[in-house]
């Protein structure tokens, strides 16, 4: 048994096999290889070994999961022995005089392409099988075994680092937990782990050789166990059981009001990163969506999402929430969230750079596309919109002018929309300090504590070395929050918190005393916060 400590992101326990994720696993170099016969022999040796491995997997699966589920490995082995596949590899090796790795990668891509282009969902999905077997051979040839796909079993994903777009693309139903070496407790992957209630550790020196081994992520102690012994396994299973018991207790708070003991109602909303998270919002009984991070629509794609695509997502969320509030935050990319097709370029200091509303104001057409989709969707539920990274009254006025243009366009096209509440994120010290002025312009404030704390304390949230200097309860931050609430209330704005601090149970009481109107937290935290509000004396 090996044991490593890291910083825990979410208090829960995961037990399962390790999937080691490494970036660029399909990067195969094309090299000139004049001795084609030697390359062919290399290929054949690697292929035979891959077939052997697949047959072993088949035997193992046969015992563990039965014939029907094991059959896939037998089919994979047969695919590798397919005549057309082998002819293609051989042909590429000889005709292009290239290395076996490249010939296999190209062949795999071509066959995958053939399946991907078929019009039936089942056959389309076979592209993944061809990729899988080709990666296995390439892995053997290049002595790197990172290429195995995430597979059908739920796994603990371990990686050097995970970019937000990479985490987004993972099949969430197969994720048990995350362990990464880089990244900090405020990174987007960490936020995602919290949203999905998955145990996650950061700052663990990860090793590729763990791939396939049994592991335990203990999110309570911040410990990763590789090849755990029976005693540890037993202890952790018990912990997992207790966890479930606690969730069950919390479930009893479902359907109860979020009121303070002195009878004040708090709006308890949830933060989501995509429409698929709405299920978790409903399951955890949130009273609305306080932060719909719309940038995930952009991160998942290779090009700008169309108005129609966005409209469908917003409409779906509005309809699923059935009249409960859905607050959509307009595009917040830049800084740690990069999207290639925006061509934002490298910046010395991206957190303070060209991002969020700044991009939207410079690229009004991109902004208007999103606003049109949001306003159109408003006809189907209770939608509000909020704007990120505001620093001045002027910006808000420019936004409002663009919103008026959008409304006029919709009027001209006879497209219905409702009155959409407009608010701003308070996440820069500038916005907090002039919140009295900003409050006259908008309907509500939502305090983004993650950015507000990094800008207030000048601490980079992506740098794990700074975690030691980071005081999440810094009095400067709490004073700013109090000021924003007071200023908002003085000018008729309601004020909420949608950052991580909103779910900090040790601060719930203080926020209530400050007069907070709304808390928006990760879906998995909703019931715990409700309990804290109901108990706050």
């Amino acid at each position: 048994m090996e044991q490593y400590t890291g910083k825990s992101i979410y208090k829960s326990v995961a037990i399962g096999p390790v999937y080691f994720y490494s970036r660029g696993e399909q990067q195969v170099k094309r090299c000139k290889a004049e001795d084609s016969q030697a390359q062919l022999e290399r290929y054949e040796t690697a292929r035979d070994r891959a077939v052997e491995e697949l047959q072993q997997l088949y035997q193992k699966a046969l015992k563990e999961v039965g014939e029907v589920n094991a059959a896939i490995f037998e089919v994979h082995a047969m695919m590798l022995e397919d005549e057309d596949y082998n002819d293609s590899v051989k042909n590429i090796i000889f005709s292009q005089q290239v290395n076996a790795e490249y010939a296999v990668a190209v062949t795999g891509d071509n066959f995958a392409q053939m399946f991907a282009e078929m019009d039936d969902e089942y056959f389309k999905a076979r592209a993944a099988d061809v990729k899988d077997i080709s990666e296995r051979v390439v892995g053997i040839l290049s002595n790197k075994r990172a290429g195995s796909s995430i597979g059908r079993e739920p796994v603990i994903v371990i990686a050097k680092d995970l970019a937000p777009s990479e985490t987004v693309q993972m099949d969430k139903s197969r994720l048990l937990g995350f362990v990464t070496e880089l990244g900090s407790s405020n990174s987007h992957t960490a936020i995602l782990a919290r949203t999905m209630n998955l145990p996650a550790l950061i700052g663990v020196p990860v090793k590729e050789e763990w791939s396939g081994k049994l592991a335990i992520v203990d999110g309570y102690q911040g410990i990763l166990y590789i090849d755990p012994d029976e005693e540890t396994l037993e202890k952790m299973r018990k912990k997992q059981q207790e966890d479930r018991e606690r969730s069950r207790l919390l479930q009893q708070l479902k359907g109860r009001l979020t009121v303070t003991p002195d009878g004040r109602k708090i709006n308890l909303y949830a933060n989501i990163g995509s429409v698929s998270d709405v299920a978790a919002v409903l399951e955890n009984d949130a009273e609305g969506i306080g932060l719909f991070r719309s940038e995930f629509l952009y991160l998942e794609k290779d090009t700008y999402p169309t108005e129609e695509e966005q409209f469908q997502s917003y409409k779906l969320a509005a309809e699923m929430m059935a009249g409960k509030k859905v607050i959509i935050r307009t595009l917040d990319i830049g800084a740690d969230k990069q999207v290639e097709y925006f061509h934002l370029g490298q910046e010395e200091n991206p957190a303070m750079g060209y991002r969020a509303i700044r991009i939207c104001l410079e690229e009004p057409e991109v902004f208007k596309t999103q606003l049109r989709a949001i306003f159109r969707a408003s006809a189907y539920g209770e939608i509000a919109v909020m704007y990120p990274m505001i620093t001045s009254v002027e910006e808000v006025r420019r936004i409002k002018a663009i919103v008026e243009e959008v409304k006029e366009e919709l009027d001209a096209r006879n497209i219905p929309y409702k009155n959409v509440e407009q608010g701003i994120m308070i996440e820069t010290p500038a916005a907090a300090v002039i919140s009295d002025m900003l409050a006259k312009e908008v309907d509500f404030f939502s305090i983004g504590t993650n950015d507000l704390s990094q800008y207030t304390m000048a601490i980079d949230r992506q740098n794990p070395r700074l975690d030691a200097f980071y005081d999440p309860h810094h009095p400067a931050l709490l004073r700013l929050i109090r000021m924003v609430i007071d200023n908002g209330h003085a000018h008729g704005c309601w004020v909420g918190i949608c950052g991580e601090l909103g779910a900090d149970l040790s601060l719930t009481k203080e926020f209530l005393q400050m007069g907070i109107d709304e808390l928006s937290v990760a879906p998995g935290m909703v019931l715990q916060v409700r309990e804290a509000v109901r108990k706050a004396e």
Partner: protein
Amino acid sequence: MGSFHYVIKDEIGIHARPAGMLAKMAKGFDSAVTITKGEKTVDASKLMAVMGLGVKKGDEIVISTDNTEDLEILKKFFEENL
């Protein structure tokens, strides 16, 4: 050359598993086995090519081979598996 027509009853069509079983069987035969769907004909021993046909439920295909004994075995295979 003998042949027979067959309409696929399996919900997914000729999916990976029966395609694999068929390929294995066809490889064991002395004469070549072909499957025709519409205008495309492929060698039944080639798994990828058979899957590439994308044969779905309700599709009619023609299975051909020279050996009449093999043809009977193939008929039985399709009726039992597809």
